[in-house]
């Protein structure tokens, strides 16, 4: 095809940027959409997982004899029923999926059983006798790395940790450039503060659920709600000791994931039970188990030191980030460290991270893992410095903002980026100039996230009526089916409604990395565009053959093959339906395909403004107004982009004000239910305003940047700043709950 790269120059679109109805809307409101727990199979068993009531305990004995004899029980599994000899992350996942000789946190799976009905399974579970020997535990990240803290796993250090640290510190990160001490010496004001955030849960409404069927031959089928079924396939095969391709995994419709469904928790258990019973096994997690045993974020403890001149120039910045990923080595402390100062063009910057083990569940990703806490700490210090120096907080951010070509705090040079544009849009937004009343405060903050490309395959199949199906491998967690259809419509020149995008199972498409890292609209989108172009090429070839001219002399426009000019010959444009109607006779089915690991994801920045009112007598905070400004590169379906921005702000409001994991003295989780783990609902919130900035990403044919994660990076900071400015006292610990705000006010008044 002659004009292969025509999209690269494209600035006007017919479909991209419009707001058609979502393709999954009717399915979801009519109940036709099938979620994890909606699948059944003939002869299906129901499973229950027994979990440790202790934060840290040796498992002395598991006696299943009474349960085995109970009515309806068909299989019981413990760690012995999974593969041994695993290492690395697979071993860690198995250790979390089913405890070995030690229960490592309250809620750790210890044993599972399957029976013919849910009631029988629950009754039988009570008959399993598990003898524990409690050992000392630690759940607080700072206490876990203090001298004398109980050791979670001896020798887990990966070799990066500086000498003399507690064995619970298992990984260390350091990055930066310049000379921070020299930078601090040049500053007019140097501020150093310590911050803490608690673990939060992604709070998806749909609990983890799956239906697995595996035979004794190791071949199996799995239906589950996940953000990445190829990953589930790979991990389950490893944990069960079977070949990857022996297991076919189909992703269900997903009722929220936010990163939490990138991990594997229950699927290998259902399969192990199924293999033992030779029956399909359904496993649905009760809500309390979701809280106790699926990924919360890491709690964080952070020290930030920043130097600034009187005019607001940052001379140096330093941060230390201590995060705990639970009883496993994987807290995203390097992401905290690398994102912390990424919004600023700094001469001198140094960041360090410590990954600390504690008796908590294995952390899982939650939108921009590690970044929101770091932004809270850094942006709070900046806010305080602006207050002390009498400077406008957005102007100071603009003055120091990273730009195209700036050396990022974590190393590389930025390609085309849009932080300055978001700051300018925020400064010029009426919200920023709106008056505030007594007792109200305004907070602003910026945020950064890397975004990701990742392994991707997409196929596009044309039907004889000229409509198209797209098979992608990235579960739709934010409206990506609509975006894929819009991008394909743009290339094919056929209506959006004529394109159906489905999430293919692991046996019908090549490998696809998880839907994470804000990668889907970018990477699956890029692959969809290329697959559509591939199909267009083939259609141009068919037209060329019919016309008897060179395929290079045919181009594609708005759904038609056209001869490229008078030299190519005089032919009437040939519509897609003409080509597909006869495709069987003219060379066979026409499909397009693309696979790659695209590298040009394009980093993303946002700036948030929030107004809050604090009741100084009760410590209660009300969010009055909220504006999100973020660079989307190119908003393919603006409504979904706005939804991502709003969702990020809302989840950030929960994290900043209400949500936290509360552990008792005994190390057990005190609030494992939505009644006591309070996520904000619509009636708690003002309308969240959004502004979409579009600075194209050169790494995507239409300029797309992922938008799913950056939106949760600034809110903790912006809200903490608003609350601090309203209450007149700096909140250094989140959530800023009423008791904490009152305590801070009391401390301030006591001097």
């Amino acid at each position, binding site marked *: 095809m002659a004009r292969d790269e025509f999209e690269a120059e494209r600035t006007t679109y017919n479909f991209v940027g419009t707001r058609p109805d979502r393709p999954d809307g009717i399915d979801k409101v009519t109940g036709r959409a099938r979620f994890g727990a909606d699948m059944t199979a003939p002869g299906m068993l129901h499973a229950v997982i027994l979990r440790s009531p202790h934060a840290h305990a040796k498992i002395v004995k598991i006696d299943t004899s009474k349960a085995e004899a109970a009515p309806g029980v068909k299989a019981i599994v413990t760690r012995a029923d999974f593969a041994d000899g695993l290492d690395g992350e697979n071993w860690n996942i198995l250790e979390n999926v089913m405890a070995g000789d030690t229960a490592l946190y309250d809620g750790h799976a210890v044993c599972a059983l399957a029976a013919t009905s849910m009631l029988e399974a629950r009754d039988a579970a009570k008959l399993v006798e598990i003898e524990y020997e409690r050992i000392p535990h630690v759940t607080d990240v700072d206490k876990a790395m203090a001298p004398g803290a109980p050791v979670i796993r001896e020798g887990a250090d990966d070799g990066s940790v500086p000498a003399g640290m507690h064995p619970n510190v298992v990984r260390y990160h350091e990055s930066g450039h310049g000379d921070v001490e020299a930078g601090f010496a040049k500053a007019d004001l140097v501020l150093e503060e310590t911050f803490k955030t608690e673990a939060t849960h992604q709070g998806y409404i749909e609990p983890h659920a799956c239906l697995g069927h595996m035979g004794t031959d190791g071949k199996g089928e799995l239906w589950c709600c996940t953000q990445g079924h190829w990953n589930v396939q790979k991990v389950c095969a490893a944990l069960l000791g079977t070949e990857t391709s022996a297991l076919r995994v189909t992703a269900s419709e997903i009722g929220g994931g936010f990163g939490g469904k990138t991990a594997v928790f229950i699927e290998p258990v259902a399969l192990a039970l199924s293999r033992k019973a030779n029956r399909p096994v359904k496993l649905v997690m009760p809500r309390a188990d979701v809280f106790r045993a699926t990924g919360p974020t890491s709690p964080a403890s952070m020290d930030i030191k920043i130097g600034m001149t009187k005019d607001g120039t940052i001379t140096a910045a330093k941060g230390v980030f201590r995060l705990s990923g639970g009883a496993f080595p994987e807290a995203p402390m390097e992401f905290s460290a690398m994102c912390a100062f990424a919004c600023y063009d700094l001469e001198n910057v140094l960041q360090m991270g410590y990954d600390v083990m504690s008796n908590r569940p294995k952390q899982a990703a939650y939108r921009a893992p590690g970044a929101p806490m770091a932004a809270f700490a850094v942006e709070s210090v900046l806010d305080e410095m602006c207050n002390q120096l009498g400077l406008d907080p957005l102007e100071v951010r603009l003055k120091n903002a990273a730009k195209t070509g700036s050396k990022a705090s974590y190393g590389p040079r930025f390609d085309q980026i849009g932080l300055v544009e978001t700051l300018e849009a925020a400064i010029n937004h009426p919200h920023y100039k709106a008056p505030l009343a007594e007792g109200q405060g305004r907070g602003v903050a910026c945020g950064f996230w890397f975004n990701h490309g990742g392994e991707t395959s997409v196929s596009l199949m044309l039907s004889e009526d000229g409509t198209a199906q797209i098979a992608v491998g990235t579960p739709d967690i934010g409206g990506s089916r609509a975006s894929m259809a819009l991008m394909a419509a743009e290339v094919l020149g056929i209506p959006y409604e004529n394109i159906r995008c489905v999430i293919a199972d692991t046996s019908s498409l090549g490998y696809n990395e998880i839907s994470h890292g804000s990668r889907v609209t970018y990477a699956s989108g890029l692959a969809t565009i290329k697959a559509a172009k591939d199909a267009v090429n083939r259609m141009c070839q068919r037209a060329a053959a019919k016309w008897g001219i060179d395929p290079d002399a045919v181009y594609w426009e708005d759904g038609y093959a056209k001869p490229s000019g008078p030299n190519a010959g005089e032919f009437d444009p040939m519509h897609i339906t003409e080509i597909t109607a006869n495709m069987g006779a003219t060379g066979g089915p026409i499909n397009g395909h693309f696979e790659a690991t695209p590298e040009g994801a394009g980093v993303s920045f946002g700036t948030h403004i929030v107004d809050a009112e604090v009741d100084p007598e009760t*410590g209660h905070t009300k969010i009055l107004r909220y504006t999100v400004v973020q660079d989307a590169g190119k908003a393919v379906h603006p409504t979904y982009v706005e939804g991502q921005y709003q969702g990020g702000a809302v989840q950030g409001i929960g994290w900043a004000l209400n949500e936290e994991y509360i552990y008792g003295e005994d190390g057990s989780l005190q609030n494992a239910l939505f*009644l006591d783990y*309070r996520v904000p609902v619509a*009636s708690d919130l003002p309308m969240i305003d959004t502004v979409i900035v579009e600075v194209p990403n050169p790494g995507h044919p239409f300029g797309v940047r992922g938008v799913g994660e950056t939106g949760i990076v600034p809110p903790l900071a912006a809200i903490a700043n608003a609350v601090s400015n309203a209450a007149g006292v700096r909140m250094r610990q989140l959530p800023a709950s009423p008791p904490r705000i*009152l305590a801070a006010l009391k401390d301030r008044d006591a001097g």
Partner: protein
Amino acid sequence: MIPAGFEYHRPADVASALAILTTHGDEARVIAGGHSLIPMMKLRMAEMGHLVDLQDITELKGISVDGDTITIGAMTTQHELITSDALAEAAPIIREAALVIADPQVRYMGTIGGNVANGDPGNDMPGLMQCLDATYILVGPDGMRPVAAREFYEAAYFTAREDEEILTQISIPRPAPGTGYAYEKQKRKIGDYATAASGVMLTVAGGTCTSASIAMTNLADTPIWAEAAGAALVGSDLGEDAITAAIAAAKDAIDPVADNRGPVEFKMHVAGVILRRAIDRAIARAG
């Protein structure tokens, strides 16, 4: 979470419901809106062999204001309390309190009878009913008996109601015209039970408080009708001294425990703040 197995009954009148309760004794339990009971069944904190659904019993529904008495059928939903014009006119504090219960979804299902019979100290209606000096009508195998809301609550989930009795009606003396009122509630967020809540009714004549009733919610293992707090206002000019005395008396009467909503000291503090606000608003509304 799924509840244990049970038999489901759906009688059409009170007599049939009573017959089922009498047959099965403490093995049976009535269900109204189910928004307290079903969560407890799912948590297996409540297990029963027989569930007696009251939703088809029309005689348990409805609101009437008749002379000096307001009568509310046990199966009246919280949503119906909010939308009743008659009630808004006769005792607007009921709408004010119902509006801060849970969220609209819960209020469409949850009933006033279930709310007051439940015995959960977190429920808002029991304190309000004490504030209003309501009487509950209980019907059992031995007939009907009235019990004052102020006498009904014994401990968390323990009330004066016998297992075989059904709460059929609530009867409330209509507040005198010009009664000042307020129901004030602090909660973590929409849809939550109170961190602290307080209901206040008072009357003022010639600058002097002539009657006052104060109740506190979720600050002890039962709702607390703080008689001494009301008494501290009566006869006063409702000035700072009287209000401070009332708050001190109310704080004496409550006994909050530390939980996920905060430590005891915090709850005591918030109880004082919201009671002061409720008193202030009630005074402003008294005419």
